[in-house]
């Protein structure tokens, strides 16, 4: 297994609340890793630590074998799509694209993704006039257009129309084939079943399970992933409704 991201003993707490309690995680090249876990389990904090937006108390994050905590250059190799994104409201989409291009100063493939996400007609619209779905498309465009070797999607497909969602998912598989490391946070179980090569299940700030879908299912007697997760959560005293 060719490791792209390696996280060791990562700890983070907010006040008295321990959110990450020593995460050890290796993520490989050329696969889609689905990050699962109930609300408040630490998924977003983990991703934000990876991006340097949250500063961990201890632990190490290595990308391609290099320690990245505290530096910023490594973010050139990450495309990140947050759950909700708001942009400078008075800007037009075209201007936002050129701004991010200008900031990153990297070759970009925006034309390709503008077509894929069907954003051609909206390019000259001010961001404040956009619908939630179109904003989400812009968000996806910004994450994808730099052909980054690491792609992180936090609830990426929420709000996307069915056609765009289909294109998006097909594209993710292509990106995987191209050797990208993809992290997918999703609450859509069928999406996870469809796309993920590996499931990373976080529970109360620890990695509860890491392995293939098949391995996860074999831990319980259930066949359906949704039921598997519900059973795990119930066993651990978690509220199953949070996940369904």
């Amino acid at each position: 297994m060719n490791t792209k991201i390696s996280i060791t003993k990562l700890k983070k707490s907010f006040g008295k609340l321990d959110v990450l309690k020593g995460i050890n995680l290796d993520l490989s090249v050329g696969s889609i890793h689905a990050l699962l876990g109930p609300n408040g389990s630490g998924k977003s904090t983990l991703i934000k630590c990876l991006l340097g937006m949250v500063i961990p108390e201890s632990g190490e994050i290595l990308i391609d074998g290099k320690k990245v905590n505290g530096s910023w250059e490594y973010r050139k190799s990450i495309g990140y799509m947050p759950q909700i994104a708001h942009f400078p409201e008075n800007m037009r989409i075209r201007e936002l694209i050129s701004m991010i291009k200008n900031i990153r100063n990297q070759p970009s493939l925006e034309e390709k993704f503008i077509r894929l996400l069907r954003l051609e007609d909206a390019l000259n619209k001010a961001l404040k006039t956009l619908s939630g779905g179109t904003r989400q498309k812009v968000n996806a465009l910004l994450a994808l257009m730099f052909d980054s070797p690491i792609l992180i999607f936090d609830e990426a497909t929420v709000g996307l129309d069915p056609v765009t969602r289909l294109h998006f998912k097909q594209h993710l598989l292509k990106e995987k084939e191209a050797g990208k490391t993809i992290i997918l946070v999703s609450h859509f179980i069928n999406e996870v079943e469809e796309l993920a090569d590996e499931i990373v299940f976080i529970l109360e700030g620890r990695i509860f399970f890491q392995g293939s879908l098949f391995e996860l299912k074999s831990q319980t007697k259930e066949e359906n992933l949704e039921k598997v997760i519900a059973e795990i959560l119930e066993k651990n005293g978690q509220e199953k409704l949070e996940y369904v």
Partner: protein
Amino acid sequence: MFKIFKYSLLDLLRSRWLIFYFLFFLTSSFLLFYFSSNAAKALVSLLHVEVAIVPLVSIIFGVMYYYNSREFIELLLAQPLKRDTIFLGLYLSLSSSLAFCFVLGTGIPFIYFNTGFSDIGSFGYYLLTGVMLTYIFTAFAFLISLLNENRIKGFGLSILVWLYMVVVADGIFLLLLMYFQDYPLEKLTLALTILNPVDLSRVLVLLNLEISALMGYSGAVFNSFFGSIPGIITAFLSLLMWILLPLFVFLKIASRKNF
């Protein structure tokens, strides 16, 4: 940093609030210059507007802008950029565009009505202190909103800071002068003035209008200090410190903050 500055500035210059701010200074300066017999008189009236409105708008608009930019900041934080670059860029773009509106809003009527450019020196002081007050109170605004996730608290605190600097500090100052009137107070008066950027700006402009003769003994003391080169340098260094101190603390805290 220049890139963040440029794009944020372009975004800000389209903001309706900034246009209102510009129009406010344009109309109030226009009216005051129009109705005053000379530029010096208009400047005294404008000064009252400046020392109250510039800090108020800078701090309120600053807090509003920071809270509205939170998500944009998160977008930028995920890009290959240093934190200092992002925050300094945002700060400079907001404070510079506010300062730009202020300078243009009062500068245009001044040039229009004052073709002989009399009192240009005093007007220069007026502009410079206005610009510095803008940078000071925007820095406070950013610091306050960074420390308070809760918007209501942030706005409340910023109004308190404004109220303190513009109104309460003067009250305390006067009380001190009353209470200790039997003692020599020149040095204390000078020190307290230097410690309040709003008072300092007011005094700097007034003294340049050469009406300090009307201010009695303390006016003479002020004039002898602020009229001298070391005095002017001290005054501007103090204003500069009022910009750098909150800005430095803001950047320091921002570099360690979790978003």
